[in-house]
Every structure is written in C-alpha cells, then in structure tokens.
C-alpha cells in the first residue's frame, strides 16, 4: 500500500518535469519560427508563431496549478520542494521566452523586409543561434539535473550581449544615414533586444537549476561583458 502511494507521488513529480520539458520544446520552436520569419520576411510563419502562443500560456498555468496541488497534497520537503518550486520558476521563464519570440514575430509584419542587408540578417542569425544554443543547453541541463552544464550557460551570457551591442551600433548607423530607415530599424532594435532578453531568461533558468540541485541560490555576480572583449564563438 505504501509502495503504491510513494510511486504515485513520484509519478506526479515526473509529470511536472515532463510538462516543463514539453513547454521548453514549444518555446524553442517559437524562437526558431520567429527568427526564420524575420530573416525570410515570412508573414505566414509569423502568424503561426503568434497563434501558437496561447498553448504555451495554458501549459504554464497547468504547471502552476499542478505544482501548487502537489505542495498542498504531499507537503514535500527539501529536494522535492525545490523541484516543484524550480519547475514553477522555469515555467515562468519559458513563458516569457515564448512571449518574446511572439513579440518578434509581430514585428515581422511591421518591418516587412526592410533592411534586408546581409550584415543585419547575418547578425540576427548569429544572435538567434546563440540564444537557441543557450536555451537548448539549459533545458538539457534541467532534464539531466546537470549543474555544471547550467553554470556554463550562466557564465556565457556575455557573448549574446556583445552581439547585441554590435547590432545596436550597426542599426544606429543606418538610422543616421537616412531618416526613412528609422521606422524599420527601431523595430529591428526591439527584436535584437528581445533576443538578448531570451538569453537572460536562459541564464535565470540556469540559476534555478543550481538552486534546485544545490539548495542555495547563486549569488555571485555574473561576468559582465563591458570590461572584457573576450567573445566565445561557438
């Protein structure tokens, strides 16, 4: 009888982790869709990305409800409690990531193919790749409960920031060249900022994983890029 109860509890925890992983997969797909839509000026794809967002929001609400229910029913302790709290936090970060991707998709329509210069699209492609890599690494780290891998992501946020600065400068020069560029370039600036925010959320997830496994929050200062020009290029 006791065995049956314990395994049901374990199943609930596994179910929670499973749903977070599923949400992660959907968020990753949204990032891919939004950047493809931006680079190819694909309005249909942009609409698909926007339409897929409510599903992710619903998943996040589900995870929250399930998590709170488990806490109420099982009164978990220590590592189990941290698992649930971690899952809730990560779900919030993933929902924000998906929202940022959706926001980029919305701007595709406004930009409408302006500034399709190789330098700009190249920069966005590179930045999106970095963001996708970080999100994938951190979600894999969550699945394996691998703190070392999570810390790698945590420490490597600087490279996305560097790319963002580079793109920022470039877009500014285009805006200075010709006032007609200001509209689309401002949208592109926001898109670049959103990608940088996605990287930040990936770092948050890494911090949560550290907390889940080690029981203490990560309090060290994240290495900021401004003072160093060291750029890890995957």
């Amino acid at each position, binding site marked *: 009888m006791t065995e049956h109860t314990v395994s049901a509890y374990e199943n609930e925890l596994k179910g929670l982790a499973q749903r977070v992983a599923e949400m992660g997969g959907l968020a990753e797909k949204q990032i891919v869709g939004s950047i493809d839509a931006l680079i190819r000026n694909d309005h249909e794809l942009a609409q698909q990305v926007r339409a897929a967002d409510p599903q992710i929001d619903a998943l996040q609400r589900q995870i929250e409800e399930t998590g709170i229910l488990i806490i109420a029913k099982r009164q978990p302790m220590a590592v189990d409690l941290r698992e649930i709290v971690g899952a809730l936090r990560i779900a919030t970060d993933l929902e924000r990531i998906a929202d940022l991707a959706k926001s980029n998709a919305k701007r595709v329509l406004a930009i409408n193919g302006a500034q399709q210069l190789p330098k700009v699209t*190249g920069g966005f492609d590179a930045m999106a790749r970095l963001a996708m890599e970080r999100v994938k690494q951190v979600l894999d780290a969550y699945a394996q409960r691998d703190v070392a891998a999570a810390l790698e992501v945590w420490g490597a946020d600087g490279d996305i920031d560097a790319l963002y600065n580079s793109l920022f400068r470039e877009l500014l020069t285009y805006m200075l060249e010709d006032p007609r560029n200001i509209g689309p370039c401002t949208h592109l600036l926001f898109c670049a900022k959103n990608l940088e925010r996605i990287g930040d959320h990936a770092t948050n997830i890494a911090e949560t994983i550290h907390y889940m496994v080690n029981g203490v929050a990560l309090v060290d200062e994240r290495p900021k890029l401004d003072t160093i020009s060291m750029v890890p*290029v995957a």
Partner: protein
Amino acid sequence: MVPLCRGLALALVLRIAGAVDWPYALGAGLALVAAGFVVRLRPRGKAPLEETLLARRAARLTDLTVEGLMAALPVPAVLLDPKLVVRTHNATAAALLPGLRRGEPLMLFLRAPEVVDVVRRALATNAHQVIDYQERVPVARWYSVDAVPVAVTSEARDGERPDYILIVLRDLTEERRLERLRADFVANASHELRTPLASVLGFIETIQGPARNDAAARERFLGIMLTQARRMSRLIDDLLSLSRVELNEHVRPTDTVDLVALIAQLRDTLGPGAAEQGVTIEVNAAEPALKVPGDQDELFRLFENLVQNAVKYGAEGKRVVVTLDSEGRDGRPTEAVVTVRDFGPGIPAEHLPRLTERFYRVDVASSRDKGGTGLGLALVKHIVNRHRGKLAIASPPGQGASFTVRLELAGAAEPVPPAGSEARGAA
C-alpha cells in the same frame, strides 16, 4: 466399434492360449472394451483458439526478449508506454539522445513538439504516424520519426488503445545537408564572383577598345586582371573547402591527431613565408604531446588559417605566438587549449562577435589588398564545430588579437605531466 473388436480379440487370445478360463477371459475383454469407451467419451472441452494462445504467449514475453529485439533494430528506437514514459530503448537511440534512461518521460530527452505530437496522434488514432523534424543547434540535423502502436495483449489487439508506442528515428541529415549546401554554394559563388568578374570583363573590353595601343595601360590592366582572377580562384577554393567541411559537420571525426606535432609542422611550413614579411612564429608547448580526436587535414587547415591571419593582419607586431596547453577539471586534463596571438593593431570590439560570419570583413579594402576572401574564419568556425570544440576571440585595445581554440582531449590519452623548460620556446 474398435474397442469391441479389441476386447473380443483379447478374450479369444487368452482362451486359445489356455491361460485362463472362459469367464475370466470374457471379463478381461469386457474390461478393455469398457476402458475404450471411457477414454472415448471423456469430456474434451473447447480447444483453445489459435489467437488467444498466441496472445497469452506474447504477454509472457520476457524483458530479455524485448531487449534483444530492440537491440537488433538497426535504427534508433524507443519503446514508450501510453504515458510517454520510456519502457526501453536500444544503444543507437542512447547515442543519439544523450542521457536516455528507462523509466523517465520521453520529453526529458526529446522535446521537439513534432515528436510529442506524432506520439500522441499515434496513441489517439491507434495507427502508424510519421513526421519530420529539424534540430538547429549545435549542428543542423534533420530526422524523420515513425510512431507505431504496439499491441501485445488481446485487449489491445481488439481495442482502441495500444499497449506501447514504438518510435523509430531516421537520420535525413545527409540528404538535406547536401541539398542545402549545393544551394548555398551556388548562391554564394554567383554573388561573390560577380564583382571581380565584372571588373575583369571591363578591363578586357578596355584593352580591346580604347587602350588597344597603350602598352603601359595594357600592362597595368593585365596585372589587375591577374590579381582578380587569382582572387576568384581562391574564392572558389575556399567555398569548396567550406562546403566540404559543412557536409561532414554532423559527423564526429574518429582519428587521433597530436596538436603539438601539427603546430610544429605548421611552423615549418609557414615560417619562411612569414619571415619574408618580417614576422617570426614562436611556438610554446606546455606538454610534449596533446592528442585530440580529429581530422588531420582539417585541423591543419584551421590553425593554418589562424596563423596566416595573424601574420597578415598583425605584421606590425613582428611576432606571432602560438601557445599549447591543457586544462582540466579536478586535476585531470580534459581540454587542449591552443592560442594564436599577434601583436598588431587588434580588432575593434564591435566586430568581435561577427568575425566568423561568412564574408564579414572589418575593413573591406585592406582585407582585399591582403588577398582575403572573407571565408577564412567561417571555415575555422565550422571545423571547430565539427570537432565539438570552442573558439574564443579576444582583442584588448592596443594589445593585438588572440584566437583561442579549445578541443576535447582524446579520452584514451594518458594525462601527461607538464614538461619542464626543455620543451618550451621555439626549437
């Protein structure tokens, strides 16, 4: 009828043999007849149906049978229960999905929404479903996933819900990569060759026309055309090399390469050319050997590009320093670290993150003068990717530029104790 005859026959035999008297012979015969009827008329019951017998046997399939079958499948395969928890898998699946474990939900190892979707559809429709999905990072890969319902018990065979779902992954990367690389190559080549080709055509027309009799102009133009033609040739070579590396980017190399020996060879090859430009190449190796899994030619090309760049753009500093070292966790060396450093003007910070993009140049004019194609660092990046390594570029203001490549050391290599000062310095 038969028992009656048997019985009478027995009675006759007994009487003729004289063994017993008639009454006893008849008694024995009757007993045999009765036994015969009893056997005949025993209730037989319904014979078990072929199918239920099969199903019962199937349900008794041991884990060993399932494991054996799964291991025999030549493609990555995972068996899931209706709750999408991994029941079992084979070794190729574990190689493809790192960390794959029995008893955990599939989503922890394979998150792609397409896969989750196809499994749920196969469960709901109890029919074979297929879907394609693509992985973008770290290397682009394409897969086709088949989700097949498995019925083991008779309820599942008759009913709507399968007992398990078998998913099989097929790697489509080769074909898709080939298509995409071909398209990219054509696009890149036509775009980049257009300008030099146009200028060569222009000069040819000028020499045929207005400058026909101007020997000095002809000499000059021919010189420029030669440079442009050589540049186009180099571009084609670089594009081909890039395609070749990208084609195999998803396949990890299997040979072992000693980086220390490779860099020594590189120094011998490039040394004379660098000396002509007034640059010396120094090599500092902290270890006598650094063995990594890799492709000899590609790694040579990688470091050749980095050193040539350093000589080209850092000529002012008069020296290029290549450092080899190992780093590790918990005292055991796990990574080989090679740094190529020049002491030239360096690279402005805003360009650092973009350097490995194809055709990205910091200063287009000076790069063209030095014969650059804009593809050198893209090639370096893809080779590093193929070797699952990391590349870092640093250029503190006024201190030149350094390119650091980190590669995983070959697991089989013994950790070599750091060599003494004899191994340091250029030999």
